[in-house]
């Protein structure tokens, strides 16, 4: 029954990925990456990872798409190469022989598929990931956390609280760096007179 959902989502993911790689209209490419993120979020929900699905939907499909559109609104609209060709969205491929790249990609793909044969079956309770750090977190978390049912939160915020502090510091540092690079140093308010992305121009 699950296959009716899983197979179309995976097929759409592959189709979207190919489209993103081939399309030359940058606005369309950005929208396709957003679609790809939404499909990934659905896929993660099927894999019982709603936390990651939230993040993927909000960051990958929402904020990243907006930021890329904002970047595009500040730069030329089309891929530079295609501007001197016709206005088609799919330009001609370069005239070099595609045989060698195809060979490399095929061999790499076969090696990766071969590698998956050694992987444990999905959801296998005896898989190394389930047994190696011993399932003590799951067992101990109820008495340790006084009944917090979400083991993921318990591990993130309590058992591994120091790591999460570091991650928050990384986000903070990244925000400061972006601010230092992008903010115009002329105006102290940080408010632009004519916002290019929003309002009438959006």
């Amino acid at each position, binding site marked *: 029954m699950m296959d009716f959902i899983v197979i179309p989502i995976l097929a759409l993911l592959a189709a979207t990925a190919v489209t993103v790689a081939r399309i030359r209209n940058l606005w369309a490419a950005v929208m396709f990456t957003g679609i790809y993120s939404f499909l990934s979020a659905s896929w993660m929900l099927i894999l019982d990872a709603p936390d990651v699905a939230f993040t993927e939907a909000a960051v990958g499909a929402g*904020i990243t798409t*907006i930021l890329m559109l904002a970047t595009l609104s*500040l730069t030329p609209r089309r891929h530079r190469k295609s501007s001197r060709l016709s206005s088609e969205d799919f330009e001609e491929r370069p005239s070099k022989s595609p045989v060698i790249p195809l060979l490399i990609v095929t061999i790499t793909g076969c090696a990766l598929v071969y590698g998956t044969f050694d992987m444990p079956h999905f959801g296998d309770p005896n898989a190394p990931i389930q047994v190696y750090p011993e399932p003590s977190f799951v067992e101990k978390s109820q008495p340790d956390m006084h009944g917090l049912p979400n083991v993921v939160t318990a591990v*993130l*915020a309590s058992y591994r*609280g120091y790591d999460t502090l570091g991650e*928050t510091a990384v986000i903070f540092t990244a925000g400061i760096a972006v601010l230092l690079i992008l903010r115009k140093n002329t105006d102290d308010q*940080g408010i632009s007179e004519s*916002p290019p*992305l929003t309002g009438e121009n959006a």
Partner: protein
Amino acid sequence: MNSFPIIRVITKLLIPYILLFGLYVQFHGDFGPGGGFQAGVIFAAALILYGLVYGLPAVHKVAPPKVIEKLTALGLLVYAGTGLACMLLGGNFLDYDMLNHGILTELPVALDFLPGDTPYHFLPEGQHLGIFLVELGVGITVTAVMTMIFYAFAGRERVTS
């Protein structure tokens, strides 16, 4: 976007629910899926949506850049401050069990706000309180950083070359 009344109306209808969902993900994160980071990006998404539809000056009125900049640091300080509070109470850094012995249960009982035989776990245990504060810190920082990055991008002029 003055010429798109449908988008404006629908956005106004949607934003309260996005914010409510963000709050749910934030404060229910220790019981259901979610947590500070997820809630932070959902909150920031609501602010960014408002900024996209109503323009940068409007969202600057709701969330002034100066406040957002300070919130960036505040979230991290809440997180680290929780750890320091645990140290001041005699434990290790981020040892939430130390927060158990705070005034949260004993003071209301002493002041007769709660009956004397209130079970000890009636109010949040140390671990609950610690995780709550830490996730709050993460949520504040993530919201502020995401919103600030959006401001930085959207506030720039188009480069004309």
